[in-house]
């Protein structure tokens, strides 16, 4: 690292407002102040900070997500950086080798990014719209449930269960997603219902 860069690092830490006042007091003159004016700002100062929780294990380390763009303001936001939240009582800013690489999970080249359909016996994926996918799913649910729903058992007891369809839920999702999933799955009468708690 050359001297110029290291100077820039120092200015970044000091912040532009401080640079105009206390740096002057330290003996940096107008020339230095002029340099500050055109130095590119510390990248993260132009980002939106958001508090979040690591998606992996149940230590649930606090993390800070830095994004270009502000989602709350309705902007498109691109994740730029992830770091540990120093205010968090459990991890106090630390992250493990998985948490430190969280950005690469969100930006993985093998993320699923569009609804896709694979036909019986097919060798490839085909694109499908959300609407068409939902129509197909809803029709399949309705038909299978109507055909296989068990209203009463052999003894005539009302049991209202549906065994020929199963649902696995995600232990990486939020409580709120889980509750909505619970409501819909149980309302359908599904009992083949589970999450990763068994593994």
């Amino acid at each position, binding site marked *: 690292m050359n001297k110029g860069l290291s100077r820039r690092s120092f200015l970044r830490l000091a912040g532009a407002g401080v640079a105009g006042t206390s740096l002057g007091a330290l003996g940096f003159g107008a020339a230095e102040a002029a340099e500050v004016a055109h130095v590119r700002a510390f990248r993260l100062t132009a980002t939106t900070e958001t508090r*979040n*929780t690591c998606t*992996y*294990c*149940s*230590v649930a380390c*606090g993390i800070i*997500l830095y994004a270009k763009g502000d*989602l709350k303001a309705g902007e498109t*936001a691109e*994740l730029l950086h992830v770091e540990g939240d120093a*205010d968090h*009582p*459990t*991890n106090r800013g630390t992250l*493990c080798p998985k*948490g*430190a*690489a969280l950005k690469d999970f*969100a930006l*993985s080249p*093998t993320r*699923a*990014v569009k609804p*896709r*359909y694979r036909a019986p016996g097919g060798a490839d*994926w085909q694109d499908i719209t959300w609407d068409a*996918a939902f129509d*197909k*799913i*809803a029709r399949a649910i*309705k038909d*299978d449930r109507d055909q296989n729903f068990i*209203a009463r058992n052999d003894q005539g007891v009302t049991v*209202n269960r*549906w*065994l*020929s*369809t*199963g*649902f*696995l839920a995600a232990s*990486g*999702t*939020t*409580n*709120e*997603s889980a509750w909505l*999933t*619970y409501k819909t*799955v*149980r*309302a*359908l009468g*599904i009992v*083949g219902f*589970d999450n*990763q708690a*068994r*593994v």
Partner: protein
Amino acid sequence: MTNAWTDIKNTDLAIVMGGNAAEAHPCGFKWVTEAKANRGAKLIVVDPRFTRTAAVADYYAPIRPGSDIAFLLGVIRWCIANDKVQWEYVRNYTNATFLVREDYGWADGLFTGYDEEARRYDMTSWEYQIGEDGFARVDPAMTDPRCVWNLLKAHVEVYTPDFVETVCGTPKDRFLKICEMIGTCAAPDRVMTSLYALGWAQHSKGAQNIRGMAMLQLILGNVGLRGGGINALRGHSNIQGLTDIGLMSNLIPGYMNLPRDSEPDFATYMASRAFRPLRPGQTSYWQNYRKFFVSFQKAMWGGAATAENDWAFDYLPKLDIPSYDILKMFDMMAKGEVNLYFCQGFNPLMSFPNRAKLTEGLSKLKLLVVMDPLQTETAHFWENHGAFNDVDPAAIQTEVLELPTTCFAEDEGALVNSGRWLQWHWPAATPPGAARGDVWIMSSIFRRVRALYEAEGGAFPDPILKLSWDYADASEPTPEELAKEMNGRALTDLADPADATQILLAAGRQLQTFGQLRDDGSTMCGCWIFSGSWTEDGNMMARRDNSDPGDAGMFLNWSFAWPMNRRILYNRASADLAGKPWDPARKLIEWDGAKWTGYDVPDIGVTAKPGEVMPFIMTNEGVGKLFSRKGMVDGPFPTHMEPFESPVENLLNPALRGNPAARVFPEDLAQMATGDEFPYVGTSYRLTEHFHTWTKHNLVNAALQPEFFVEISEQLAAEKGIRGGQQVRVWSKRGEVWAKAVVTKRIKPMICAGKTVHVVGIPLHWGFTGVARKGWGPNSLTPFVGDANIQTPEFKAFLVNIEPVEGGPLA
């Protein structure tokens, strides 16, 4: 966890057995390091491998996979024999003094009531002697031979240090050293914590492993104290929350249960859930079950759940068997009995046992729907990837939909950590491509199905048509709306039962606590244990005050912990019978003459007098259970059982195979091997650089640990002629994998029952999608059987063979 991650700093002794916290939970394990540095705490590790947790331990001992019960009952025997017992705690806070029926017994590895054909126990005799007053009989002097303490003493007598060495392969001197270290924590002012994970759970008797430690912790008086407890280090960021909300075959949110066929109506259902106290004056908090249940039904079906229709009791499905868990569903799938299957953020093809059977099952579905942020192996199960996924796509008729979902960076809501903290998080990034959140996806599917039932009618449409859907935007309920439903609210003005003119909570107001729930339909609550998480004061889960009064490690104003923001469960037991802390330097709560005060929310009525109301308020007895009555299907005490695939016989009864009460399907039993055919013990584990099959999609982690390997000892390598780095084939009776061999000093052969036992370590992070090199997981090899109580698959102890390979699929 009974306690919190931050509380581990308060311990005197941490025992990591059945887990590997330094690698699997690194930032939580830091609190063990804090305890070592600041309190002089010690760390014991007992594990088949010399893990990185073991590398920083004060004392390590090896153990054969699947023999933990023998070890733990051996420690209990040693503690009893050497008077390392917290007597005041055991006498008053456990059921040691309770008398058990005369017809209960144990012999030859089996408890009374076993039916070999049904692989099931009749549990009638596993019960207290009940007096004419309806309460359990007790003997405070503990001289009666039928009291739990004396039965326990007799039960553990066989687990001598020699027996432990023979069964576990743990050298006797190491075992005894660990007993001595643990025994010091029987002193009232010394506390041990137990940190465990799937190393205990993934066995056909996993729940009994954990009970073994829970019993030991009760005997030492370490449950409810700062630095103590039974701490399950849970594996996923919200596995605790998903379990709390009951996303399992047999659960209703807040650890209630679906009705069984034998409970045809609400009255019958409630009759077995009266939770009458078994000792005078005890709380038995589950007596409020009816309030929780009715309020849940109101959350589900609102106005359609009425007193007249038993609160829509028939809208819930009933179970004819204990559970349609994943193993059961995949067994049905393989038999062609399942048509549709949904995987929401779950990759069963790489996480459930006997992958060949899983592929067979998925291939018989009509439609598989996968919702996931990643391209999972399950969604791609029909693709041919050579030896890594050797299938013929043309022969697989299953339709598949792969639906892209958001991940943590793009969604909002709460996750429950291992210490039961509900922590809110906020979205920062725009989802990639067309990815959408699970709430929108599930709402879209549900509303379409509802519309079809409205238009066409069909099988019992009522629970669908009347499902409560009171959201501002019906197409995508907000996290706030859903969180508030789980917290619950008053549906009508709630009058004070003591003074009807006083309104405690006005209609429409959020509940402050589940103490306000009613069973008359005037309250709704999706998940009673979460009550208090979103009150009229706002979102308690989003609180971020990290102050910690008394440096106690409790952080009461950070997030919200269930239940009632309590950070240590059973914390009443941290004080003696008179209400004084066992260790004044580690006060948690104490009785000030009129009420309980301290650093945590008391786990007892705030004005419940010490000496009258006992600490374990959720049990009928008011005390912790050394003898679990009918709580577990495989015994009121743990007993040594071998894995289904074991290199040695069960020394207690050679005729027994695995857990005699575990469910095993006949086809799977036929696929289980003996030590003659498959001589080596396989065991699965995680690496610190990876998380399940997620991080192989991630460039950094794929670079850190790029390829699948198996780990073997230098001795086994020499015996089989395997060089470090060489390709090997590992196979079981169910499948085979190829991997690079890592020859290591971290695994050493053990001697069990006179035999040399070699262990083959198999990490679980590779597959055929993602950016890392293709590989396999241990589930290509593992047996299709689960724990008798909760159906967690037996991944930690199974049989394999191994050979060096030239020119295999990795070459």
